[in-house]
């Protein structure tokens, strides 16, 4: 079942690939929408069945390269299922958003179907090498998305993204090798390694392995000081590319912590949790402050991602502190971290789609070029306003649930860090409100930056754009108001994880 979910997009891509690129682009875009929709339905089925079970469900285990200790081992639990759901939702939104695309459609659609398989595969993988394969292939796919369909300085930005995250992935691989060699018998299986935890607390070697894995994941997340690849990649990527990059690919980093770094090296994680907390706090503050200084809307959203991911890292670090006590608070922190991953994926996805709408109409992301858009485009302004409020954590939306749990959980074990991170929310609120103010309110300029064809003013959101955004906002609202359906599986996973790290 899970394999079907993972490989369905790839199968559709294989079916579409032989068609000549001269056929109507609609064939590809509609095919993509159908594939994404069917996949989302399948994920829904998986979710409903999982809710009835416990632990890892839909587990499937086939020997793949037994000589090298590699197996095809997949399954979902409370920590991975929300991200699988998020991935299928975001890809469906991207498919709907791109339905009217006309140029270079074939390659674009095939790449996104390929990326969807990589992303779903990564979140269901229970084998380190399987995880790594998807991790690396997602980098390759995203590189071609940015380099081939990006704008501005796309080539160099894409190369920077590739090199930086590729270096991270290889550091990750070295760490995996360390775990493989330490386990007896040698294996890459995550479940078996978590049971044995061979390197946990084993002094220098354990620290080196955690360091290699940590650097690899921190680059991907990204956390200060490893974030420098991200702003250019986001600025120059196509809008839906940014959605996937921020919404799904960044989560691979944070998910790696809860799936690999923490359960496989619990004692070592406890030992260095203070460093993780520190990096998290710095990311929260640094991301917020630098975002405040941005003129470019997309760049600003990219830096708020550094801020939001910083909370996740802070929460995961604080869950490693105070071993043996404050269990409830630490479960709360981990639950908040996973909820934050989902929430950030949904809301930042919408923000990047809005940035794409802005660019398609005005030809620039510079906020100084726009003002008073609420007049000609009331729906755009309304959606932007709601997303902005949701994004800095107003109660009623998912961001509040996530950040509240993170800070409440972290306050128990890392009081000072949580207190220091609190102003980050304030700065984020200020910068997002300022952006809303500059773009949507105020006077209309007498000459619009670049009128779109056929009209002399900013046109409002089209139906397909709105169809892509509203369900994501709706999901965020649902999580904000009735969160139990999401929190219940996450909490089960979090209890298990906190039990493993002591």
């Amino acid at each position, binding site marked *: 079942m899970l394999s079907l979910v993972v490989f369905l997009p790839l199968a559709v891509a294989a079916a579409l690939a032989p068609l000549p690129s001269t056929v109507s682009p609609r064939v590809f875009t509609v095919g993509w929408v159908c594939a994404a929709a069917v996949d989302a339905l399948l994920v829904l089925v998986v979710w409903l069945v999982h809710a009835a079970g416990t632990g890892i469900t839909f587990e499937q285990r086939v*020997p*793949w*390269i*037994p*000589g*090298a200790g*590699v197996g095809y081992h997949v399954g979902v639990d409370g920590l991975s299922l929300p991200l699988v759901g998020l991935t299928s939702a975001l890809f469906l939104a991207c498919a709907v958003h791109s339905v009217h695309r006309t140029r270079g459609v074939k390659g674009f659609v095939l790449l996104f179907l390929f990326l969807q398989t990589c992303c779903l595969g990564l979140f269901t993988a229970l084998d380190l*090498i399987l995880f*790594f*394969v998807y991790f*690396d*292939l997602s980098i*390759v796919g995203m590189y*071609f998305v940015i*380099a*081939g369909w990006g704008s501005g300085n796309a*080539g160099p930005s894409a*190369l920077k993204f*590739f*090199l930086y995250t*590729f*270096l991270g992935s*290889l*550091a990750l*691989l*070295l760490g995996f*090798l*360390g775990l*493989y*060699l330490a386990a007896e018998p040698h294996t890459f299986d995550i479940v078996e390694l978590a049971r044995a935890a061979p390197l946990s607390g084993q002094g220098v070697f354990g620290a*080196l392995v955690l360091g290699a894995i940590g650097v690899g994941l921190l680059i991907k997340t990204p956390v200060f000081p490893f974030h420098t690849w991200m702003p250019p990649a986001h600025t120059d990527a196509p809008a839906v590319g940014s959605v996937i990059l921020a919404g799904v690919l960044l989560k691979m980093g944070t998910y790696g912590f809860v799936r690999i770094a923490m359960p496989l090296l619990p004692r070592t994680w406890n030992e260095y949790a203070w460093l993780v907390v520190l990096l998290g706090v710095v990311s929260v503050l640094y991301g917020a402050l630098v975002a405040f200084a941005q003129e470019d809307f997309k760049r600003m959203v990219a830096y708020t991602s550094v801020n939001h991911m910083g909370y996740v890292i802070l929460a995961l670090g604080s869950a490693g502190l105070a071993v043996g006590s404050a269990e409830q608070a630490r479960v709360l922190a981990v639950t908040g971290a996973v909820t934050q991953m989902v929430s950030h994926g949904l809301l930042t996805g919408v923000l990047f789609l809005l940035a794409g709408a802005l660019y398609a109409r005005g030809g620039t992301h510079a906020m100084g070029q726009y003002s008073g858009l609420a007049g000609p485009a009331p729906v755009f302004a309304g959606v932007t306003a709601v997303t902005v409020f949701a994004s800095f954590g107003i109660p009623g939306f998912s961001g509040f649930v996530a950040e509240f749990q993170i800070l409440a959980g972290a306050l128990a074990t890392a009081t000072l860090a949580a207190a220091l991170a609190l102003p980050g929310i304030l700065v984020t609120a200020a910068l997002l409100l300022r952006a809303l103010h500059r773009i949507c309110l105020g006077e209309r300029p007498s000459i619009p930056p670049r009128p779109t064809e056929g009209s002399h003013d900013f046109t409002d959101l089209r139906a397909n754009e709105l169809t892509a955004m509203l369900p994501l906002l709706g999901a965020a609202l649902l999580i904000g108001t009735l969160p139990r359906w999401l929190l219940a599986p996450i909490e089960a996973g979090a209890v298990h994880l906190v039990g493993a790290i002591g």
Partner: protein
Amino acid sequence: MESGFTALLPETILATGAVLGLLLGSWLPLRHQWPVRLMAVLACLLGLAAVFAAPPLPHPVFGGSYAVDVATQTGRVVVLGGTLLVILLSAESVRSHPRETEFHVLVQLGALGTLVLLGATDLSLLVAGYLLASVPLYALAGFRGDAVGTEAALKYYLLGALFGVVMIAGATLLYGVGRSTGYAVLARTLPTAPPSVVAIAAVALLAGLLFKAGAVPTQFWIPDVTRGADAAVAALVTTLPKIGGLVALFRLVEGVFPAGGGWPVLFALLATAAMTLGNLAALNQPTVRGLLAYSTISQVGYLLLAVTVAGESEFAGPALLYYLLAYAVTNLGAFAVVCRFPYAETPRDYRGMARWRPGAAVVLLVCLLGLVGTPPTAVFLGKLRVFVAAVDGGYGWLAAVAVVNTVISLFYYLRWLVPVFLPAVSARDGGPVPTGGRAALGGGIAASVSLLAGIGAGLFLPLLDGPVLP
């Protein structure tokens, strides 16, 4: 113990094919020498069949001067399969060539020399294998007879002769202090011999094998031959001799040279030098052939990781063999694209290929990303296994160096790969001009094998586990 000629069936078939081909060729009209090509293909196929029909492993033959073990068997498969691919790649440039017979005979003899080199467990046979694996390739390098080809052949020959003499001197010295040329005896006598003489002699012996492998500091011929010779010949000399050289090195380091002689450190430094120098030099190459030339030097660096920990990690042998297989097929795939588009010299000339030649673009994508080490291609698994061996053998820092080098290598592979997927400069530009379809077939086969050997490694990886005889 002794099973005589039946154990050497693949080698015998190849030698017979070469000799019969030479005789046959002298009776054929100049423009119709295709039966010789057919004979070469048959010899390789029969040889492959003989490999799979071999008696159980391992066993030394001919008084312990030749070993038929897992390394020899894997090497045979890779060399014979690689030779088949090279014959396919060369079809366009040597078909109906007046010296087609010579070409195919020399290719078979070079392959035979490589087989001798990788199975030899006796210094005399090793030297003979070195000469047999070198001399035909000198002639092949200058096969086209133009100025750059001749220069390449001359440089290749002079360096080969120099390192050959140095190697023979080393073998002589080892014979002197070890009182035998057989590896089995040397392994017993060398630990008690004067260490300084053994060290000098061993380093001299290594010079020849490093030359065959194309490793630093004996790499000077590679760029010249790769750029100057026919593309199919370039594919041959950058792929097959490496297999012989590296397996021979592995045998010596694992079983013959006395332990505690500082060999791992030496090889770690050689590996670092090859990776780093190859990668840094490849960054600025204007032509795709120059890029591939230095890429092969850097790949030897990764392969030397396995030689470094030979004898210190149980993973080293299987890792080396798997990586050799993966590297050979992936490198041949990249060269197949070069053979198919002989007029496209720089990466810029490949603009628009994805639009006009999607098949070739996919082959290049698989092979170049494969050479980087992107999963799920075979080289990824090869790198993974080599890194496992290095970390296990206590050379984690060397694996880290290899990782940094892998990231550097991404730059130049992408420099070639990106134009392939860019739109052509003008609408009338139909992308690079191809030659006939055989090279395309070769590339397709190589890319498929590279991908399938990665995904399906579970099926044949256990076959590579087994003792490598000293």
